[in-house]
């Protein structure tokens, strides 16, 4: 609940460990307090040990068919969290997973760069919608170790 006073805070902190342990923790803040006002998606630049590279894309819901969108929706949620700096601890695992997906015995991945692309949703004065220009940012670089590929 979005209520912040010392009593509520005390109660919350007192019961929190029990709720977390038992799985009864919960939060109901979808699209709130305000929905996202930006479209974004993730990619990875995969650099191989022979110097070649390729662009690998996370599943993008808007490019999938209706059935795949149903099955792959967890990726949307995961990508939303992955591009959040508060969850930077997720980045090495993601880079290793992408390295394994793109490696084989002859073509070894050396580096993985995680890239976010985003475009603002801009409301116009005449109430119509405009898509802002796409920006890009490399937010994480991981050097792959041999043991990561096993």
């Amino acid at each position: 609940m979005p209520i912040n006073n010392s009593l509520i805070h005390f109660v919350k902190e007192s019961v929190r460990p029990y709720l977390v342990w038992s799985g009864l923790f919960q939060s109901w803040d979808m699209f709130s307090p305000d929905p996202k006002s930006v479209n974004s998606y993730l990619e990875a630049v995969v650099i191989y040990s022979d110097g070649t590279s390729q662009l690998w894309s996370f599943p993008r819901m808007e490019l999938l068919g209706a059935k795949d969108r149903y099955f792959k929706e967890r990726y949307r949620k995961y990508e939303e969290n992955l591009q959040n700096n508060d969850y930077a601890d997720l980045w090495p695992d993601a880079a290793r997973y992408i390295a394994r997906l793109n490696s084989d015995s002859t073509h070894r991945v050396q580096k993985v760069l995680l890239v976010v692309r985003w475009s603002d949703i801009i409301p116009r004065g005449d109430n119509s919608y405009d898509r802002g220009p796409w920006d890009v940012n490399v937010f994480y670089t991981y050097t792959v170790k041999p043991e990561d590929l096993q």
Partner: protein
Amino acid sequence: MNFRIVPDAWNRFFFAPQSPTPVALFRILYGVVVIATLILLRPDWLAWYGPHSWVTLSTMQKMEPGMRLNLFAVIPQTNVAIETLFWIFLASAILLTIGLLTRVNTIVVFLCLASIDQRNLHILNGGDTFLRVAGFFLIFAPAGAAFSLDHLIRVRRGRESSEIPLSSPWAQRMIQIEMALLYFVSFCWKIQGASWIHGTALYYVYHLDEIQRFPLPQWLLTPAILKLGTWSALVMEFSLGVLVWIKKLRYKILLLGLIFHLYLEYSLNVPMFQWDVLSAYVLFIDPGDLDRVWCWMRDRVAVHRLKRQDATE
């Protein structure tokens, strides 16, 4: 002033015996949505929960330290062990749905649900949270007292009459409260946001590429309609959280809630969330009404059978 009014009302609400048919029906719907959730996850069981998954167990434990009810922390971190856990989970969800060894399976399903949620918190939506919390209270409910193989077996063995015994509905009430809380807390969060108050929130939601499902007619996406939709969503969430407790309004609000969720299911890609929440609507139906519908259906089937018998003779 009668000081017994509040405790009496409390006792009536939580403990006055009533027919367990709503919670038994909820058990079936709940089982179906858990099975559907597992099937949708099936191609990625190991990608999300395996030893070399997108988020490893050690990363999850580092990010969310402390004691947690999580079977993944105690089973071997191998593909075979993890897939076995999922197959046990699926089998248990099927048994729960048909009502065989109901109590045991409510416990197994809750343990498995809590474990997969704790194992990877970064892929969850509100539907998963609702299933987990409702699953906890389902453990204590007389979920196998009706519409179940358990009940059928007990009747066949002469341990129970075919009449469904009344029981205390406190666990059902807890799931109802959980559902109402879901809407009310969502409402409270939303009114903190300027876009919900100004009526522009849905404008952004329906321009997020990643979350669209099927196309909507253009007139529904005009700013005026989206503004109306934004405020209607607030009214709906408040009504389903608060006004749903008023008996006279209940069925009308549930019907509007059903339409609201079906609209979201068509237009937004949040798989299972709408069905997870809708499954609990049945708990708000009066057991008497549910029994009447059940009798009506039974009579229709009996008449249909008789007619078929007559036709063949």
